[in-house]
């Protein structure tokens, strides 16, 4: 077996990186979010004025900054995977730490956004738009937390030297999940904050 295959595809050829089980979970989550996205889109079709009007009150800047934050965080996770593929546990831990830190930034920005909405008396029952806005973003928010927990567990194990250049499925598994959280936000942001 050539070293190239070992480092580039430390998984079975043809299958995605990480544990296959996480990919079942990822696709299940994508399915749930996908249906939710479509539900939003078609609910909007029946209520265009309401959605367009309410959308104006969203904080587009914080949405955009959060997109940048998550994309960058995802990139850091890529670097963490690259590091462990070279057997560099310490670098892997640093990159993961940075990614988790950015996840925290995302949460803080989102909390400010939620705080502004809640103090304006907006809740799930205000109208259909806010029902979707809050449901989708809170649901995603919880996924960010879950992703951070997973990354933290991976980081801890990496810190203890639990991964090597040959055996690091755990890092790839956590990374794949985190990229999914990123991917979801990449769709959520234009859908809820931009399209009108």
């Amino acid at each position, binding site marked *: 077996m050539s070293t190239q295959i070992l480092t580039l595809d430390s998984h079975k050829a043809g299958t995605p990186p990480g*544990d296959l089980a996480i990919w079942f*979970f990822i696709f299940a989550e994508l399915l749930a979010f996908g249906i939710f996205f479509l539900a939003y889109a078609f609910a909007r079709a029946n209520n265009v004025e309401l959605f367009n009007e309410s959308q104006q009150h969203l904080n587009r800047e914080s949405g955009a900054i959060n997109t940048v934050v998550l994309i960058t965080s995802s990139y850091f996770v890529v670097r963490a995977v690259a590091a462990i593929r070279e057997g560099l546990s310490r670098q892997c831990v640093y990159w993961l730490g940075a990614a988790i830190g950015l996840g925290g930034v995302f949460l803080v920005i989102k909390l400010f956004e939620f705080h502004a909405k809640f103090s304006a008396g907006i809740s799930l029952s205000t109208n259909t738009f806010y029902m979707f806005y809050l449901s989708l973003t809170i649901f995603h928010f*919880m996924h960010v937390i879950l992703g951070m927990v997973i990354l933290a567990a991976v980081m801890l194990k990496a810190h203890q030297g639990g991964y090597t250049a040959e055996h690091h*499925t755990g890092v790839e598994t956590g990374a794949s999940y985190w990229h999914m959280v990123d991917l979801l936000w990449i769709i959520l942001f234009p859908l809820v904050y931009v399209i009108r």
Partner: protein
Amino acid sequence: MSQAFTKSMARNIFFGGSAFFFLLLVALTFDTMQVLPKRDHRENITPAVERGKMVWEKNNCIGCHTLLGEGAYYAPELGNVYARRGGGEFIKAWIKSRPAEGTPGNRRQMPQFNLTDQELDDMVAFLKWTGEINTAKWPPNIEG
């Protein structure tokens, strides 16, 4: 070489996923509890309504009827019966007039429950209150 699909990962997803969605349920339940007073009009739950619910339960009405669509499908929906029958008098007269030995013919039978006048009034109060719950416009029409 690492294994592609491990039991421990499947187990972690089970525990993590279940905990995650249970937390989401708790969060949604919390919000529901905040909103409910505006939809169930609980300020109108008088002692008569409370007693009426007891009468409803003690006679196992749910064993034949539906209430807001839940129950048995043998007899009519009663969540909107107060509106359908234009008030409580019909309801009371109906319950009172069931023959103990049944009505003749091949009809579905409702037992004679021997309710007191007080119980009948309480039952009507309960059904009236139930009819005022905001059920998102269900049922589709007055027939239930």
